[in-house]
């Protein structure tokens, strides 16, 4: 059996999505900036995709622009917004547990003279809304807060946050990275006062190499790229039509199956969590909240063993997961999200991220826990801490 639980990094592309894309490689391969019929076909396909992507967030298709992926979308949102609004101020508020594309953009902006406040989070990964209120200043131009955390699944109270931001100063631009939230939790950009939203394609089973930003009409974003302007001045370049079509189809399917998919994944993650906790009792602990969590992201720390070794043991059994261990990172650093949630480094080394999708099933969850037990036993046999553990 092969069980894929790395869906917050890369996800399987729905077969119907691939089918929908093919004609735009081989038949309707024009781009909308030309005047002939193939261009018209591309234009219509892009418009339809935008409608499918905008519908689940209660937005209009006209407010959707495309980028090459989430990394570019978050860079464009954060940097583009502050560059375009610098005359009003140079202060940004974000959290310490954003995806690296937001965090590193903020760090780069600090070097350019912008001031950034990074909100702390509690042990469940929630920000303190009172701290946010205290941090917002007259010269704050951007508040950027992710909807769902990519490592531990914490769902921030985006509606409350949006309300507060606008009450404090309606000119502040509120950006939400919805990479791990789109079509996984309900989002309404209007009700939540969201000005700019990052929307993934691959994580909703669309193709890679494409993502979108929802950008409210009144929001100015300075382009980061320069070149031929086709449909969007904010993001020049010819459109990747097949990818856009696939993205649109994935959004359409994702929206149609939303309730069923979320309920299924809730059931699966509940089972996975219960079985891990029954099997590992005081050896493993959940990182992140029990309530207000996305069922798609489940993170556990397994004490006394190292996560890279656990990941590779699981890999040999056909279970594909990721770890927050330092040994598995390029920088040899423990995952920062775990540390910000107060996980001790020695425990964070044994962290495993289980990212589910609607393609997983119960049998797979049983298999994963069986393999986990076996893998853990293999490693604890080697460990100097084996006397601490009974499994």
């Amino acid at each position, binding site marked *: 059996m092969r069980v894929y639980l790395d869906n917050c990094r890369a996800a399987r592309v729905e077969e119907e999505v691939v089918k929908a894309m093919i004609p735009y490689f081989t038949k309707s391969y024009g781009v909308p900036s030309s005047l002939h019929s193939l261009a018209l076909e591309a234009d219509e396909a892009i418009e339809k995709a935008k409608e499918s992507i905008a519908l689940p967030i209660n937005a209009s298709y006209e407010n959707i622009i495309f980028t090459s992926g989430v990394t570019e979308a978050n860079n464009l949102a954060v940097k583009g917004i502050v560059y375009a609004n610098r005359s009003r101020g140079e202060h940004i508020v974000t959290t310490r547990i954003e995806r690296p594309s937001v965090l590193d953009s903020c760090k780069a902006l600090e070097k350019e003279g912008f001031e950034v406040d990074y909100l702390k989070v509690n042990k469940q990964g929630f920000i303190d809304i009172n701290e946010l209120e205290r941090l917002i200043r007259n010269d704050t131009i951007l508040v950027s807060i992710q909807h769902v955390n990519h490592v531990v699944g914490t769902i921030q109270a985006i509606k409350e946050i949006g309300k507060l931001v606008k009450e404090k100063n309606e000119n502040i631009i509120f950006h939400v990275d919805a990479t791990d939230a789109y079509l996984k939790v309900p989002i309404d950009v209007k009700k939540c006062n969201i000005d700019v939203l990052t929307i993934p394609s691959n994580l909703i089973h669309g193709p890679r190499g494409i993502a979108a930003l929802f950008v409210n009409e009144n929001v100015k974003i300075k382009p980061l790229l320069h070149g031929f302007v086709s449909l969007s001045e904010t993001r020049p370049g010819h459109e990747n039509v097949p990818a856009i079509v696939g993205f649109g189809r994935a959004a359409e399917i994702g929206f149609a199956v939303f309730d069923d998919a979320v309920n299924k994944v809730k059931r699966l993650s509940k089972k996975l969590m219960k079985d891990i906790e029954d099997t590992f009792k005081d050896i493993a602990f959940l990182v992140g909240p029990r309530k207000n969590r996305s069922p798609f992201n489940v993170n556990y720390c397994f004490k*006394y*063993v*190292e*996560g*890279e*070794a656990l990941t*590779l043991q699981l890999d*040999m059994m056909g279970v594909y997961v990721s770890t927050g*261990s*330092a*040994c*598995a*990172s*390029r920088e*040899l650093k*423990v995952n920062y999200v775990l540390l910000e949630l107060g996980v001790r*480094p*020695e425990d964070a*080394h044994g962290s495993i991220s289980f990212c589910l999708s609607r393609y997983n099933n119960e049998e797979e969850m049983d298999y994963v826990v069986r393999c986990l037990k076996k893998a853990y036993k293999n490693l604890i*046999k*080697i*460990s*100097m*801490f*084996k006397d601490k553990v009974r499994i």
Partner: protein
Amino acid sequence: MVYRYSEIVKKYFKHPKNVGKIKNADAIATEGSVLCGDMMTMYLKIRNNKIVDAKFESFGCAANIATASMLTEVVKGMNVDEAEKVEWKDIVKKLGGLPPIKYHCSILAIQTLRSAIRGWKEKQKKFYNSNS
């Protein structure tokens, strides 16, 4: 991938050799720490300056386990002075290479071995000094 392991590393990770403690070991050392996610304990049995048995315990990644496993195999039967001279590069070579980011694992294994031997030598010195 961030890195790839050789088939030999995978083999030693999957079926590590010389795992566990040695009862009444003549030399024991622990290096690394759980804080950095790489920790190793090495046990040696030494007779007439010769390592007759070597075992290890590890809290570490696949590279850590594989290097410790290979190193214990290599030094078994060696004279202590000879074992002290084994370099991390020798172990890496025997493992069919390691990703550069993982070299520190083999360095840790060598450090643990040397620290065990150093401790044993000091113990020997004290013993002879007090008996002379």
